[in-house]
């Protein structure tokens, strides 16, 4: 296959990848009440409907604070875990490694049903922090993967230098290690945030009567398709773009962590 044929084929694949993201833009600005393409006219009405609907706003706000709390908890637990896995030497470390990454392998539906069973018994259904706990379980592998990659590339001579120059363990961690790992921390935190903010399956089971944004969207898609969903989708795509830009600017390259 020649280079040109490759480029043509990839362009087509890119169109396939980007088309769904692009199509929601015109629809969200449509003046038609039903889905029509191309839109007959321009209107902000679907954005207004979203902003005026307390249910949508409520779901968005809940999703936001659940995602923030998840990111914080996942970092608080995942960063020390990554340190242990990369730098520790103890029996059973391989097992800890497997357990830490297991939520990535076990299908989310199984985790959801299992945690649902437990939370129903503990009367945690509908509680926002129950959702945070379950989302943290799912976000932990991302944090561990990104932080482990960062830690493996970390030059430990820098820590030795700091200690040799008179810094205590704690000060070395605060002044040298963590500042230098900041790109990885930023990426890990943002990935944990997004993974919770977009998460549907767990929320479907655990959110109870309290909507999260994905759950509200899911219900709306099942009930009625009106372009409000498109407006919400556009906002989500923009949010993700912002997060990706933040990662690109302040975080550790995603392509590096993927390898």
């Amino acid at each position: 296959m020649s280079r040109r044929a490759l480029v043509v084929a990839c362009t087509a694949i890119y169109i396939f990848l980007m088309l769904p993201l692009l199509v929601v833009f015109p629809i969200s600005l449509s003046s038609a009440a039903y889905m029509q393409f191309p839109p007959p006219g321009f209107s902000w009405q679907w954005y207004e409907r979203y902003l005026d609907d307390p249910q949508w706003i409520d779901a968005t706000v809940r999703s936001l604070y659940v995602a923030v709390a998840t990111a914080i908890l996942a970092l608080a637990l995942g960063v020390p875990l990554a340190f242990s896995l990369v730098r520790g030497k103890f029996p059973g470390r391989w097992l800890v490694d497997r357990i830490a990454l297991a939520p990535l392998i076990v299908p989310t539906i199984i985790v959801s049903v299992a945690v649902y069973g437990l939370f129903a018994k503990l009367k945690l259904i509908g509680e926002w922090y129950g959702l945070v706990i379950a989302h943290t379980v799912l976000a932990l592998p991302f944090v561990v993967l990104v932080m482990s990659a960062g830690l493996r590339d970390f030059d430990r001579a820098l820590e030795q230098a700091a200690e040799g120059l008179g810094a205590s363990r704690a000060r070395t961690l605060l002044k040298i290690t963590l500042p230098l790992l900041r790109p990885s921390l930023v990426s890990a935190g943002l990935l944990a945030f997004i993974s919770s903010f977009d998460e549907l399956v767990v929320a479907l089971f655990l959110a109870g009567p309290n909507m999260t944004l994905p759950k509200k969207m899911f219900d709306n898609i099942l009930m009625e398709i009106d372009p409000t969903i498109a407006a919400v989708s556009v906002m989500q795509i923009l949010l993700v773009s912002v997060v990706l830009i933040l990662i690109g600017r302040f975080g550790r390259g995603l392509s590096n962590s993927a390898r």
Partner: protein
Amino acid sequence: MATRPTGLKAADLKVSGLQKRYGDVVALDGVSLDIASGELLTILGPSGSGKTTLLKVVAGFEKPDAGDVRIDGADITALPPARRDIGMVFQHYALFPHLTVRANVAFPLEMRNVPRAEIDKRVSETLQLVELGGYEQRLPKQLSGGQQQRVALARAIVFNPRLLLLDEPFGALDRKLRETMQLEVRRLQRRLGLTTIFITHDQEEALVLSDRIAVMNKGRIQQVATTTEIYERPANDFVADFVGESNIFHGTVTEPGVVSLEGGRRLFANHSGKVGQRMGVLMRPERFGRGTNVFAGEVKEAVYLGVSFKLRIACDDGLELIVRQPARGPLPAPGTRVNVAIEPEDIHVF
């Protein structure tokens, strides 16, 4: 002229009986050393000889399995690195990439809670000393290799350490720069009177820099002596072979002043061995010239090295010699018959 930092407290170091194993690998096998206050001692050895482990034990990054480390007589074996007051220049400098030159050099002072005004004063003094005034606000990656090296050095000496450790600090520099930096480090070390341990695998570098050299191999110190002593009077095959070019043979003392080599050749040499004793014989290639011991042979290989010719000669008595001769006249072609000779006092017997 920059002043010498105040409150100098260079100390002497004594390590004794150090043992360290990593699994089956013995990194240190009973290492003992004394370093006098203000002395520059080089630890010279091939990679895997244990020299880096020794440095790490002295700096406190590794705990020895046995033995102790004393500074000015006080046992510091159990002390964490942060409380040893030892300045260290790392192999790749280990400059903190997120801190400016100033912040890097100020770091050890901040860790010691030195007042801000005092920090400013000492940082700028030290940067003057390494000729980096004006670079305070740069980040390490904005500096050349030689400049990074100076920052690392400044950071290691700014807090008046009791001991300075240099871990192959010149390895990453090109040859010209390396020679400049070597002389500069030597000058600074003398001026500050810092007790210094320098680690290298480069024997030339060791000869240029040191007061004394400790040659290490297989976790043991092979010989500790002045530079001339190490070169002229190596204690064993390893030292003779590792430092400089050499022709090494083994033989037996057959009468006073004579050693008979394996293969029968008799050499006149100054030595104190008894008749019947087995001994090693070292002849440095550049010591051949006129002399009592004459070797006739054929040139096998000849290389032009600018200052000298380096010849590999197969002698008629079966020995093979490496000989250096002043580069005068045409380079001898392989196959040329030559005579080379050496005086008994230029042969080292051990």
